[in-house]
């Protein structure tokens, strides 16, 4: 059959038969350890600079960022953004528990439904799983709580992201996905007996992982980049400062919904945290 014909032709070209067991084992080992290659120095910087690099890169790619110091401020930040863009205060929301727990009642004018996106939705609010400072890229994996259509159909996409989920390089985001892939608390990424990580047999790869860098564009007309192709015309990130490195006034690992009532006593300057490599706080406790 064609499979045998193709593999046979490759082996003839390589002047050998199927790989012997020891060489297969070596290649299996490479898959299991998935070694990293060179990681550019630009993202090998202390945490605050990594976050600044992320924001700078998002803005370079025509995205926008609003920072909030507390989860309770997120509904207001979304309302303000929509008003500033002259958009109706109506959106489709990712059915993610962390978003559902936000104090939406504080902004009664906001109308939303938690579901997948439809063609008629003008604005979507997505849950940001992780982000990569190196190029200002969002990592948006699909699962029941983060439908892919939210990244595609609306003209305006708002992504709610925690600073603790900003990584330096893509490799760190992949390892986060590998680590949390079967963790039920992350929203069920990966389903047992579907995708298998060769390393330890754990499934981790979601059906769809989008790495998104800025709003949709095309360079097909005279090779000049123009914004507003088939995906969102606007990409706005509401960035919640939750890095554990921030002044430890409150319990650092508190979930946002629980942290919300503590907003009144929030630290005054949460943006200038001390350098810290990698977040130890559970992503969605």
């Amino acid at each position, binding site marked *: 059959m*064609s499979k045998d*014909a*193709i*593999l046979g*032709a*490759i082996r*003839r*070209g*390589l*002047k050998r038969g*199927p*790989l012997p067991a020891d*060489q*297969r084992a070596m290649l299996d080992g490479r*898959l299991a350890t*998935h070694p990293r*290659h*060179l990681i*550019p*120095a*630009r993202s090998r910087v202390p945490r605050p600079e990594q976050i600044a690099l992320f924001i700078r*890169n998002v803005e370079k790619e025509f995205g926008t960022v609003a920072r909030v110091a507390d989860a309770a401020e997120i509904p207001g930040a979304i309302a303000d953004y929509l008003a500033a863009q002259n958009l109706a205060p109506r959106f489709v929301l990712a*059915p993610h528990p962390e978003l559902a727990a936000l104090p939406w009642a504080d902004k009664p004018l906001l109308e939303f439904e938690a579901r997948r*996106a439809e063609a008629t939705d003008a604005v979507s609010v997505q849950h940001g799983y992780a982000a990569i400072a190196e190029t200002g890229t969002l990592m948006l994996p*699909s699962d*029941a709580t983060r*439908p*892919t*259509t939210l990244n*595609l*159909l609306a003209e305006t996409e708002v992504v709610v992201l925690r600073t603790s989920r900003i990584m330096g390089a*893509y490799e760190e985001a*992949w390892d986060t996905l590998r680590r949390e892939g079967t963790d039920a608390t992350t929203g069920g990424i990966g389903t047992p*007996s*579907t*995708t*298998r*990580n*060769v390393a330890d047999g754990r499934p981790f*790869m979601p*059906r*769809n*992982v*989008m*790495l*998104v*860098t800025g709003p*949709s564009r*095309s*360079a*097909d*007309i*005279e*090779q000049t980049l*123009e914004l*507003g*192709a*088939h*995906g*969102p015309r606007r990409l706005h990130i509401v960035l919640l400062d939750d890095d554990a490195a921030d002044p430890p006034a409150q319990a650092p690992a508190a979930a946002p919904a629980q942290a919300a009532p503590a907003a009144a006593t929030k630290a005054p300057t949460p943006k200038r945290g001390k350098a810290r490599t990698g977040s130890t706080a559970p992503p969605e406790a």
Partner: protein
Amino acid sequence: MVQVTSPAFKQNAARALADAGLQKALGKAKGAFLQRRAEAVARLPEFEALRDIGRDIKNHTLANLDFYLETYAANVERAGGTVHWCSTADEARAAVLGICQRAGARTVTKGKSMISEEIAVNDHLEKHGIEPVETDLGEYIIQLRREHPSHIIAPAFHLNREDWEADFRRMHTDLDPNRVFNERRDILAEARTKLRSRFLAADVGITGANFLIAETGSSVIVTNEGNGDLTQTLPRVHIALASIEKVVPTLEDATSLLRLLARSATGQDFSVYTTFSTGARRPGDLDGPEEYHVVLIDNGRSNMIGSEFQDMLRCIRCAACMNHCPVYGATGGHAYGWVYPGPMGSVLTPSLVGIDKAALLPNASTFCGKCESVCPVKIPLPNLMRHWREREFERHLTPATVRRNLGLWAWFAKRPQAYRIATRLAVGALKLLGGRKGSFRSLPLAGGWTEGRDLPVPEGGTFMARYAQQQRKR
């Protein structure tokens, strides 16, 4: 496969050079890509080191291609997808049609895919009553015009803004004929509106793949528009078309290559959408396709393994080689006469359609070496073109006069004494004939040269004579 008109390269090129619209488009577009690539490379000091890494990852994969393809296919199936192994374009077309027919498809949306051009799947679907709709902006207008892409990442490289406006007015007859296109973005907005309903109505979505990942069984697409993602997310069935050399071992390997791809291609640090698809919709998912198929295509590539052309299989289709090529810059992509233009096409096309049909392509190069110097995976393109010229000569495909003259030159070249006498005579004769004019407008036996440019009159003696003179002075 797509009709091969490569044997008519000379006529194609002459026509291209005389085409004012094409020349205008080429002049405008080329500079943009070159400058943006140079800026993106300058922003990343590690770029050169990454090129070596990219080359090594691809070489490692090709040396174990059977293993990685089997691992990849096993992981696709573990994730609930199906792999269709296809040796030929015919098999691949049949596989795609079969999937579409089983899905009861009437319309199929498509993301940009060069392998789809290679196997001419659109014609095949149309013949069987299924309508393919290209959704990449460039591919969309190419389909309206019933043309082929002239560039592997910018299909409408050969068109000017006026062409877009005229074609949109001609084809979108339901819209106000007096509407005004003030800006490029007005053209973009119209395409967005027109295509939105097609995305929603499609039964099957077909994309290509920039990479396949053995570790996870994922296919990766890289786009700026989001059309590829709409194509693979909204319909009930997703088909990814991919050639066998697209596989890489791990996410880390793909990541290193992705750091090279967008910078080399459009000069972006990263494309807007880089998307990894693994299997079909999972339990609990609210969207995504219910079926996920990979049509894995050989179509001549396995024969390149172990040959002097194996290096070509490292290609990640960034188009930097054609963007920097003076020949491509003068003729555009259509002159090359098949799917892949520019230097990478001049090496790949003979491998896939046969040197007998594509012998002129490896000759359509000045060997300036720019293509090799910008290639993100360091493919020695000029060297590979030279291998094809050797094969062409061995197989007596070279025209008789060229062979005769090369033979004559070789006779002299192997007899230094005779060579020196002959060149001394020739230089003397040219000086005598040329006198003080400085150059010849035309010269018997050298019409091929003087047709396009003047031949300068030789100054001084031959190289050997001047060398001897210098030696005596010391």
